C-alpha cells in the first residue's frame, strides 16, 4: 500500500479530528451530528486519497466533506426542517473561519466533554472519542469495558449535554480555573491509566494512552500557553513518559525509580519537560502566581530526571518540594510520597513512623512503601506481611511480579 498516503491520513486524523468535530459542533449545535459527519469524512478520505492523491490542505478538505455530510443528514431527517434551513444557509457561507476561531472551537469542545455535570468516567470516554478521535472499541478496550456498555456511556453523556443544555462554550473568567482543572484531571486520568494499567489490561503500561494524554495536553497548552498548571501537567507527563523505556524489565516486572537503567530514559522528552519546568520557575520567581499541584509534581520529577543515579539525587530539594505540595494538597497520598523522600534524607526509621500515621489501609502503594521501609529497617516478618497485603491489593501484573520477588527475596524466606 501507499505508505505516504497512509501517513498523511494518520497525521490528518491526529491533527484535524478535534478541529473538524469542534467546528461542526459549533455550526450545528449537536455533538452527535458532528461526530458522525467527522467519522464519515475520514472514511471517505481513506477511500479517496489513495486514488485522488492527498489534497493540498487536508484540514480544509476534511472540514468541507464533513460539513456536506452533516447537511445531507439534516436533509434526510426532514422533521428537523428548521435546522435544515439553517444548515442550507451554511452551504452558501463558504467563507473560511478566521484564524484562532478553530482553536476556540476545540477549547469549547474540550470544556464541554469535561463538564463537571458529567460523571468522571463519562468525561474521560467523551474526551477520548470527541477530542482525541479514538473509536468506541478502542476506548472500551482501554478501560476494560464491554463495547456496548462504552457506547451507551458515550451516548448517555451526549444526551445529557443536549437535553440538559450543557453550553458549548469556553467558561467565563470567574469559572475558568475550576473548569481548566476539571480538564486537567481528565487528561491525568487518561495518562495514569496508561502509566499503570488497571485490572487484567492487555499490557501493564499503555503507551497509546500516555501518548494520547500528552497529545491532548500539548493541544491545551497551545490554546492556553500562560496557564501554569496546564504547562505543569504537560511537563509532568513528559518527565514521567521519558522513563517509560526503563520501567519494565525483560521478564515483565515493574522497575521502580531506584532500580531503573537511567541510560534508557528518553533524553528528548526529558529535556523538553525540564525546559517547561524551568520556564514556570522563572515565572514564579518573577512574582507570578505560586506553583500549583502539577507544577510542583513536575519539579519533583525534573529533579529525578536530571540526577545521574539514586544517590546523586538532590533529596533535600525533593523533600522541600513535597513540603510545598503538602501545603497545596494535604492528602495522605501526598504524605505517603513525601515519606519516600524522608527515608532518603532522615533514614527509613523516621519515614516509617510518618507512614504508620497515615490512614491508607485500602491503598496498595501504602503497603508496598511500608514493606520496603520495614525491609530496610530489618523488620522481616512485618515486611513480609506488608508485601502480602500489597500483592493482595495490587491488580497490575508487572507490579505484582515486582512485589512478589521482593517478598521472596526477604531473608529467611
Amino acid at each position, binding site marked *: 500500500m501507499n505508505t505516504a498516503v497512509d501517513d498523511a491520513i494518520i497525521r490528518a486524523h491526529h491533527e484535524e479530528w478535534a478541529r473538524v468535530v469542534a467546528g461542526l459542533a459549533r455550526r450545528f449545535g449537536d455533538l452527535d451530528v458532528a461526530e458522525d459527519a467527522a467519522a464519515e469524512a475520514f472514511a471517505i478520505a481513506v477511500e479517496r486519497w489513495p486514488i485522488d492523491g492527498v489534497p493540498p490542505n487536508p484540514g480544509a478538505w476534511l472540514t468541507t466533506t464533513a460539513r456536506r455530510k452533516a447537511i445531507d443528514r439534516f436533509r434526510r431527517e426532514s*422533521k428537523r426542517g428548521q435546522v435544515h434551513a439553517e444548515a442550507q444557509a451554511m452551504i452558501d457561507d463558504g467563507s473560511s473561519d478566521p484564524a484562532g476561531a478553530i482553536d476556540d472551537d476545540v477549547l469549547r469542545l474540550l470544556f464541554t466533554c469535561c463538564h463537571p455535570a458529567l460523571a468522571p468516567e463519562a468525561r474521560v470516554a467523551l474526551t477520548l472519542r470527541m477530542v482525541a478521535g479514538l473509536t468506541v472499541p478502542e476506548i472500551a478496550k482501554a478501560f476494560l469495558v464491554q463495547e456496548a456498555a462504552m457506547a451507551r456511556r458515550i451516548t448517555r453523556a451526549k444526551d445529557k449535554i443536549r*437535553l440538559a*443544555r450543557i453550553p458549548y462554550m469556553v467558561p467565563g473568567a470567574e469559572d475558568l480555573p475550576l473548569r481548566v482543572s476539571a480538564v486537567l484531571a481528565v487528561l491525568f486520568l487518561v495518562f495514569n491509566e496508561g502509566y499503570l494499567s488497571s485490572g487484567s489490561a492487555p499490557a501493564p503500561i499503555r503507551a497509546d494512552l500516555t501518548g494520547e494524554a500528552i497529545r491532548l495536553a500539548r493541544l491545551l497548552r497551545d490554546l492556553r500557553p500562560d496557564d501554569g498548571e496546564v504547562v505543569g501537567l504537560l511537563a509532568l507527563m513528559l518527565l514521567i513518559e521519558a522513563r517509560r523505556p526503563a520501567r519494565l524489565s525483560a521478564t515483565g516486572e515493574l522497575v521502580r525509580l531506584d532500580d531503573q537503567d537511567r541510560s534508557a530514559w528518553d533524553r528528548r522528552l526529558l529535556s523538553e519537560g525540564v525546559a517547561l519546568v524551568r520556564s514556570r520557575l522563572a515565572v514564579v520567581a518573577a512574582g507570578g502566581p505560586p506553583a500549583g499541584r502539577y507544577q510542583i509534581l513536575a519539579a519533583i520529577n525534573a529533579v529525578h530526571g536530571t540526577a545521574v543515579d539514586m544517590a546523586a539525587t538532590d533529596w533535600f530539594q525533593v523533600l522541600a518540594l513535597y513540603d510545598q505540595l503538602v501545603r497545596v494538597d494535604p492528602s495522605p497520598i501526598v504524605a505517603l510520597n513525601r515519606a519516600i523522600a524522608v527515608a532518603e534524607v532522615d533514614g527509613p526509621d523516621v519515614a516509617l513512623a510518618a507512614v504508620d500515621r497515615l490512614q491508607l489501609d485500602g491503598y496498595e502503594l501504602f503497603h508496598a512503601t511500608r514493606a520496603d521501609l520495614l525491609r530496610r529497617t530489618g523488620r522481616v516478618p512485618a515486611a513480609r506481611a506488608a508485601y502480602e497485603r500489597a500483592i493482595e491489593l495490587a491488580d497490575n501484573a508487572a507490579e505484582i511480579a515486582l512485589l512478589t520477588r521482593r517478598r521472596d527475596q526477604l531473608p529467611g524466606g
Partner: protein
Amino acid sequence: MAQYLLSVIDDLSNHEDPANVYGHPSAEAAHASWAATGRFNDKLVADGYFVFANGLGVPANATVVDGRAETPIFTDGPYVETKEFTAGFWVIEAPDLDVALKLAAEGSRACGRKVEVRPFLDVPLEM
C-alpha cells in the same frame, strides 16, 4: 431558554429530633434559612429566572393514588420509602445548565440543603 426543576433534598434524620424546628436545629436557624431563601426568591424574580417555587410537607402525609383501573386505589404514605425526600422546589427558566447550576448553588446555600437540578422534558412540537 429552558426550564429546570430545582428540588430541595432533605433528610428525614433532620426531622427526627423533637428539638428541631422544621428540620432546622433551632427556631432561629429555621427563620434565618427562610429569610435567606426569601431573598434568593426575590432575586430570581428580579433577574427573570423565576417560574414557581414552594415548600412541601413531610412525605409521611402523602397518599399514593392509582387511578389506572376503574376504581382508584388509595395507599397511605409516599411512593418510595427513603431517608431522603423532596422538601420543596423551584421551577426556573435559564438559558443553559451552567446558569441553572449556579442558581442551584445559591439556592442550596440559602435553604441549607442539597439541590437536584433536572431539565424538563423538551418534546419537539412537530412530534
